[in-house]
């Protein structure tokens, strides 16, 4: 599903590389926590998977494709098989819940009938049935994140990337979000989640990958958060 082979990434004007010689593999259907302090390279790791950045050295394979060899115009096609969720939700404030989710299908040219069918379905899945016509501003943080997850999942991606999805949420709400991500994982979708949330990592007991100053320092199945911050 994801394979990093000796991946390094250096940004111009920074003396320390963001990632240094990282090699790992994530199998289909896995749930992986990505932990590490700020600046450890988590975001770069995720951006490389999304091909928002290219590696300086080494290869990244996502869904069997070598991203270095993927031409620019094929990148959108690749991203359609990925879903993305962020700490700040990134919803469109002037569109309703249903429109926000539908937007992800409209812009890749899905038919109207398909959208009408899949949007209520996915909103039910994330527990927002009945709130289709609400505006994002009227929803709680947890509900907004559920909309974002619905939008990421509506095209049934094979891989879901979550960058600190509970970072703005209180512990109780976070548990709800984690249950949802776990449910999505059980449908066969691979989930990679960067997080700072010790409680969640310790509770879920999933594979944990820890980065420190750009190096892979720990890769533990059924791991815990592992360090104090």
């Amino acid at each position, binding site marked *: 599903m994801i394979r990093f082979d000796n991946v390094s990434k250096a940004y111009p004007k920074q003396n320390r590389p963001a990632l240094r010689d990282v090699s790992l593999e994530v199998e289909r259907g896995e749930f992986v926590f990505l932990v590490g302090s700020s600046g450890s390279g988590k975001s770069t790791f995720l951006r490389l998977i*999304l091909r928002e950045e290219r590696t300086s050295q080494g290869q990244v394979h996502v869904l069997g494709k070598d991203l270095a060899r993927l031409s*620019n*115009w094929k*990148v*959108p*096609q*690749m*991203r*359609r*098989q*990925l879903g*993305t969720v962020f700490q700040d939700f*990134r919803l*469109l404030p002037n569109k309703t819940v249903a429109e926000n989710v539908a*937007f*992800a299908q*409209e*812009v*890749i*040219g899905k038919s*109207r009938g398909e959208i009408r069918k899949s949007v209520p379905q996915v909103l039910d899945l994330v527990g927002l049935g009945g709130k289709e016509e609400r505006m994002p501003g009227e929803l709680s943080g947890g509900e907004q994140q559920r909309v974002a997850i619905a*939008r*990421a999942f509506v*095209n049934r991606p094979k891989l879901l990337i979550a960058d600190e999805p509970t970072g703005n949420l209180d512990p109780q709400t976070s548990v709800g979000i984690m249950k949802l991500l776990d449910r999505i994982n059980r449908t066969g979708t691979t989930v990679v989640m960067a997080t700072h949330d010790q409680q969640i990592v310790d509770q879920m007991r999933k594979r944990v990958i820890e980065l420190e100053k750009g190096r892979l320092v720990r890769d533990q199945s059924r791991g815990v958060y592992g360090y104090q911050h």
Partner: protein
Amino acid sequence: MRAQFVLSEIGVGLRRNLTMTFAVVVSVALSLALFGASLLLSDQVNTMKGFWYDKVNVSIFLCNKSDGETDPNCAKGAVTGEQKKQILVDLKKMPTVDKVVHESSDEAYKHYKEQFGDSPLASSLTPDQLQESYRIKLKDPENYKVIASAFAGRDGVQSVQDQKGILENLFVMLGGMNWAARAVMALMLVVALMLIVNTVRVSAFSRRRETGIMRLVGASGFYIQAPFIMEAAVAGLIGGIGASAMLVLGRYFIIDNGLALSEKLNLINFIGWDAVLTKLPLILATSVLMPALAAFFALRKYLKV
């Protein structure tokens, strides 16, 4: 591609930047109107030059039958074959003469018809009313006087005309106007392009949230860029329509009505509606393609896929 989605995006974008859109429309309209005016001015000059203007320097008109009664230079009647031959021989002997072409009265009639085809005078004219002539190209155009003194007043010669003398000054002025129009056009074009680039940049910035999400869910580059490019194209098209209207109204008010030059200067042959209308497709196409291209290149910089 869902047309409705794209159209609504365009509408939203154009309204959001109403002042910028207005500036784009006006600058495109002005630059293209000047572009069209410059083309029409060239057409006008060409129309006025007629068949021989650029080809010869001096014309020797020979007497025809009807001149014998009306023109004192032709008191001895129409030119004879002998006289014609002598003139040609003498012309060829002169070192300053580069080329001599004989124009028969039938050819003169044909050329006249081409230039003044739609005027009422042309329809009443017959070939034998026109003079035959020698059209002479000089090695040095300044030597016109040599020809004039050699042939004016000779039997069978009605008149010797310096072809450029009459219209030269007018054409110099029109040429100057043409260059001025082109210079202003170039400037307006640069302004229009910079406005378009800036409008697209503002538009892309104010919609970066949408485009960011579009990128993430895998919308194609074309799908992301199309609304911005179409926005520029629509604004440009409105400008192009404005420019076309200015040209049509310009011809109407300068030549037909208003200034009514066609009545006041009825010896000059003005460009017709066909000259104006044939320019419009070019202007409309430019008005769409130029902003679209400018937007496309601006987006490559501001909207990475």
